[in-house]
């Protein structure tokens, strides 16, 4: 199932929350949805699901608007916010009502509770759940209809490290099964381990849509780390061929403008001893900060 947003625009009073946003989400990969706080990610999710009405533009799932699905849980599962539960209902009752609304069998409720590891606490009131348990309940709700498409807004929020790893593997598994998975998260290290593709927005506008590798390659600096006891000789050789060197210490340099392979070949041809030679790619975090810096809405000031 392909999710497609075309020229989506949403205004709240005078504030333009989403501004002519166009992107698509393909099946079979995890697509990360990135953007600073207040950049319009959650609003976009609500617009996709028809919860908020777009002022203009369209959002479709396989070409059809969400509203045209009579029993959408079998097509699209969404976790918008783990807090969207009534505290005095049990987890089971919350899911049971949802299942009933889409004519899904009651046993699916037990199945998804077991799937997310809440089998033991399904009969307890949601008010007694930790944030991590509520996240799992929200994920269970999204999985009720075993849908082909999943939307998750900050699913790792409040989960412990083991839970974070679980959700990462879970989402990758869903994508490998050929499902469409769109997930927003602020945990960039997590995102870089889980997402293959990215949609990056800032101030409601699309900044980039591309693969993670492409994004990092384009916006984060890559360098080569070289350790050599003959650094003085090496730095002259590399410098003469156009590379830039930053020294961490007299024997260690960060080389930019040249691949590790080239550095190695030059060293070998000139009989220079190397103790270490490594390609260091930039991080997603570095690329993300580079790209979103101008669009950050809420910024702390250094004291």
């Amino acid at each position, binding site marked *: 199932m392909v999710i497609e947003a075309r020229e989506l625009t949403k205004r709240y009073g005078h504030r333009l929350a989403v501004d002519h946003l166009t992107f698509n989400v393909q099946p079979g990969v995890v697509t990360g949805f990135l953007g600073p706080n207040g950049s319009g990610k959650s609003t976009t999710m*609500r617009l996709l*699901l*028809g*919860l*908020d*009405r777009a002022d203009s533009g369209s959002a479709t799932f396989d070409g059809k608007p*969400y*509203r045209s*699905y*009579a*029993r*959408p*849980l079998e097509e699209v599962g*969404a976790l*918008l*916010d783990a*807090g*969207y*539960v*009534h*505290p*005095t*209902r*049990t987890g089971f*009752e*919350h899911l*049971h*009502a*949802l299942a*009933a*609304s*889409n*004519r899904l069998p009651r046993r699916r409720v037990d199945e998804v509770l077991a799937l997310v590891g809440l089998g033991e606490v399904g009969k307890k*009131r949601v008010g007694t759940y930790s944030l991590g348990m509520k996240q799992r309940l929200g994920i269970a*709700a999204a999985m009720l209809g075993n849908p082909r498409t999943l939307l998750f807004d900050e699913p790792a929020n409040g989960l412990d490290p083991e839970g974070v790893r679980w959700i990462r593997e879970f989402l990758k598994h869903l994508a490998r099964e050929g499902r469409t998975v769109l997930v927003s998260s602020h945990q960039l290290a997590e995102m870089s381990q889980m997402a293959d593709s990215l949609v990056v927005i800032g101030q409601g506008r699309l900044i980039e849509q591309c693969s993670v590798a492409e994004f990092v390659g384009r916006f984060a600096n890559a360098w080569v780390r070289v350790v050599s006891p003959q650094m003085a000789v090496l730095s002259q050789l590399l410098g003469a061929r156009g590379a830039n060197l930053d020294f961490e210490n007299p024997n260690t340099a960060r080389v930019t403008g040249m691949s590790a392979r080239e550095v190695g070949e030059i060293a070998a041809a000139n009989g220079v001893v190397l103790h270490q030679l490594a390609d260091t790619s930039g991080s997603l975090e570095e690329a993300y900060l580079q790209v979103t810096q101008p669009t950050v809405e809420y910024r702390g000031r250094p004291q």
Partner: protein
Amino acid sequence: MIGALRAEWIKLRSVRANIILIVIALAIPVVLTFLIAAIAPFGGTTFDREVFGVAIITPAVVAAYLCGVLGVLGIGQEYRHNTIRVTLAAQPNRSVVLAAKTVVYGLFGLAIGVLALSLSFATGAICLAARDISFEVAIEPMIGAVLLCVLLTLFGFGLGAVMRQPAGAIPVFLIWPLIIEGIVGLILQSIDESLVRWLPFRAGQELANFTVAVDTEVFSRVVSGLYFTAWTAAIVALGWWLVERRDA
């Protein structure tokens, strides 16, 4: 639609506040009727029909107002806890959700109305008989009290849909009939006695009227009932319209 009805019924019975309100709504006709029927000094001049009304109809009407509060919660809680977004993501056709809620809360009001009246009838009949006080069973106010319970539940639901937050809608629902109509009624009476017939809750209560004297300043039971039904339909329709077009 059947799925949506089942979902609304599960939601109605799985919230603790609702269960507490249902218990209170059913306790009132027992406790209040018992107190009135066992203690009230019904003198020799009280009509048999009014003994029946005070002891048996009035407590059922009080229960009906609690059903109205439940109606407010039926949709207000969804907005308060943002579960409306979960509900509408599962059923994006909002008319289906609203129709299911209207049917479920209407039937629920009917069931509570019948139960409350049965409880007050049983309690009252036993207590009055034990004191050798005669009373006259009046069918019309009994039917009216049950209908009033249905209408108040739906009125509360409509008001909840319009206002969304129960913290605002519940006080409005209770202050409107108890205080606002009292004050406005006094003002209207000073202008023209018959103007009070246009107060919606005043008209609604006419459904369960059991007095022997006929008040010519208000509409008849049937017309009053239809008039309050029109108000209820209007507030439910306004609520539907707003829920349809607002962001969830």
